[in-house]
């Protein structure tokens, strides 16, 4: 017996040794699965009212919380969980987060914040939490500024939240310049106006004595280029938003200029110039005033826009017999037609991401806002109505604003926005009629 055990041991060891090479084969391979469908629905988030640091901050805290909620929910990508469903109450900005409580109400993101007002200055700080991962999503941030800028601070918080969750930059702290319209259709007053992206803080840039059209933001958001009939004919003007001073860009007698657009670096602009009944595209150096002719065709070339890298220009032309979209190099020449669907295509605008071109399409009496790739492929129509036109991109390339007008002599144009996916179509609240929006960059 004494001898047998060691032998058995030796045997066992030997056998185990023999078995070793096979051991890895016995190791478990993971069960491999592929998921090809998920759900397309807004991400639920909880936004407890920001904590007011003192009585003076109470109202501002409420307002800021409301704007953040409007911003996020307004994207269609987020769904606010009503506070009545909350299990945890956030009463202290630095209090630990009870993730389980937020999980229980299916909140995927939690935003907490606090607001204080001191000496006419408002300070907003917030934190974002990834509930299911049980961890903060990025660090806390704090913004400060004059009390009357509280909306901007709310937008900035919303931008930060949006960006952290989606990985894309936000667009809430941005402005839109547009044509405000009032009066009957036969005697319409058109003024340049500027507002926050959500329709708040509207102010007017011109007095309405002359017709204005096609305002476009400069890439830095400091200037606006537009068409005015001050001289009785349409000409391109540029306005400094800080001083409201404007100057006419072109200076060629006997011509009309229109459809201007800044280059991505803001140093030049491209526009249409009509001379002797023929319209072509030109670019102008904004410092020297030097112009360059980009197209030379008997047809009408108009509505130019640069690609984000400034290397190409997309424009509309009727050279084929009806309006279609073409792309050419920024220096002119080599235009390639990219739209081939039924109907007419107009007002192409390059997405800030560079991956899509938005356009207006007219077919069989209806108007559409659509997008296509820069090579013309993958055309998708996002909206359809009696009259939809003039798309403009949000600074992050995610949302498109455009003008919609209903039939009828007393109808007023309105600005609408739609997600690039075609969802979340909604009007943008404006004072009176509004058309021809141009979405500016994120403010700094």
């Amino acid at each position, binding site marked *: 017996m004494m001898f047998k055990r060691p*032998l058995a041991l030796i045997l066992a060891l030997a056998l185990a040794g023999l078995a070793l090479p096979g051991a890895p084969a016995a190791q478990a391979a*993971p069960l491999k699965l*592929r998921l090809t469908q998920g759900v397309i629905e807004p991400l639920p988030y909880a936004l407890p009212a920001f904590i007011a640091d003192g009585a003076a901050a109470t109202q501002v805290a409420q307002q800021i919380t409301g704007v953040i909620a409007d911003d996020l929910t307004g994207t269609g990508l987020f769904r606010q969980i009503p506070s009545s469903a909350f299990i945890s109450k956030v009463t202290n900005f630095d209090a630990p987060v009870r*993730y389980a409580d937020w999980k229980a109400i299916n909140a995927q993101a939690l935003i907490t914040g606090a607001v204080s007002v001191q000496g006419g200055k408002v300070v907003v*700080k917030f934190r974002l939490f990834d509930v299911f991962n049980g961890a903060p999503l990025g660090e*806390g941030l704090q913004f400060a*500024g004059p009390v009357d800028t509280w909306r901007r601070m709310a937008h900035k918080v919303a931008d930060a939240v949006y960006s952290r969750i989606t990985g894309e930059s936000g667009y809430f702290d941005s402005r839109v310049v547009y044509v405000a319209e009032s009066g009957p259709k036969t005697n319409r007053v058109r003024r340049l106006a500027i507002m926050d992206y959500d329709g708040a803080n509207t102010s007017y840039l011109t007095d309405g004595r002359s017709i204005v059209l096609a305002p476009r933001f400069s890439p830095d958001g400091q200037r606006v280029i537009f068409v005015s009939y001050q001289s009785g004919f349409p000409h391109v003007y540029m306005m400094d938003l800080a001083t409201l001073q404007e100057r006419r860009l072109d200076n060629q007698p006997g011509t009309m200029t229109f459809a201007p657009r800044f280059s991505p670096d803001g140093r030049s602009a491209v526009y249409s110039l009509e001379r002797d009944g023929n319209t072509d595209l030109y670019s102008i150096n904004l410092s020297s005033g030097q112009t360059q002719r980009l197209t030379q065709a008997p047809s009408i070339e108009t509505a130019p826009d640069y690609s984000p890298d400034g290397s190409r220009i997309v424009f509309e032309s009727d050279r084929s017999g009806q309006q279609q979209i073409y792309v050419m190099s920024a220096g002119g020449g080599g235009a390639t037609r990219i739209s081939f669907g039924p109907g007419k295509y107009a007002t192409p605008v390059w997405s800030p991401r560079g991956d899509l071109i938005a356009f207006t399409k007219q077919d069989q009496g209806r108007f559409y806002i659509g997008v296509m790739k820069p090579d013309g492929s993958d055309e998708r129509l996002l909206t359809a109505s009696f009259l939809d036109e003039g798309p403009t991109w949000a600074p992050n390339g995610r949302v498109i604003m455009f003008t919609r007008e209903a039939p009828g002599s007393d109808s007023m144009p309105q600005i609408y926005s739609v997600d690039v996916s075609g969802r979340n179509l909604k009007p943008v609240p404006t004072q009176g009629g509004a058309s021809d929006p141009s979405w500016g960059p994120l403010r700094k």
Partner: protein
Amino acid sequence: MRTGTIISGIGHVGLILWLLFGGYLTAHNDAPPIQVSDVSLITNKQFAQLTAAAAPPPARPQTKVKSPEAAKETKPAKAPKPDTPAVSPKPAPKPKQEPKPDKLPQITSAEPRVQPPKFLKAPTPEKPPAAATLSPDVHTSAPPKASQRVAPTPAPAPAPDAAVAPVPTPEAAPEKTATQAKPQKPKQAQAPKEASTQIVPEASKQAKALTGQSTAPKVSPRPELRPETPAAPAQPPKEKVAKAEKPAKPEKAKPQKAKPDTSSAVDAALAAAMSATNGAGVTEGGQGKSTHLGPPVSAADTEGLLSTLKSTWIIDPGSPSADVTVTVDFQLSPDGKVIPSTIKLVSAEGGNQTAQQIAYRKARTAILHGSDLGFNLPPAKYQEWRDIQMVFDPKGMRLQ
């Protein structure tokens, strides 16, 4: 005296020798066949892993990293104290204690950083494994199963047919590459049977016991339970899996160049076959691929998991993250809950790094959320679904 001693000595020595060699010979014959299998099964690290997995998961480590709040989170009841993580319990002004994360005293561009740390692996280098997984897996799982069950049906070696697989129509491919595509179809045909076994047991513990029942019928009460049935359907799929594996072997022996083609063909065929039948999710590369000896996981078994994840995986088709396909590994505990620390990104394809990060986070959230809702996996097959590799592929949901 001497002779006596000598005789006694010889006798003892003889006895000892007999004990040594006789015992050695006899014991040698008996022991190996039984012990071999036992040893390889029991002693492996798998048991250690098993027990480790069964032990309470170590709770998210990430939480702790970022802020003290996470640590405190576990303390539920204490209301007042935990507020300030700082050192002293001063009655001083709370508001002044700005948490370290706070930044930017003035309005500044809020361009946020999108947590870079989580990302470990680049997308492209990871591809090979993903593509290669199929073939290697087939190999690894093949030997054991073939030796045990497929012995009767060894002959057909339709390896060349695999090359024909790429025939355009999805249905044609599986037919031609009979050995490969077939195993999938029958599996799904058997799904209903498995489904019945899944529905029957309300008590998971009993089901567990019943799996042992096949080998050791210790369980006496309630003989009516039907989990016996899975045993029957369990075999055919293995045969088929084995069949599918066979072509891989012969190919090995033949020209090695042919391998990748067939494996990709198999991959395509399987994917086509599976996606045709199951829109939401599919089991890749054959089910129950692991080398565990338990019953294989069927499509019906994974249906609960896939449908749960389908409901928790939020996709934003307009986002760049919708262009990213991520492969994520994770481990489940025996009660079907995800062990958060085991969730790992294996690879990401498409999009830029930020989009990949977002895609991974969404997948991770889907898994964690789904775990809370429950995956409804058959406890008896825990060994088969303990380790899961899930591909989150939003291709079909992208904007067209």
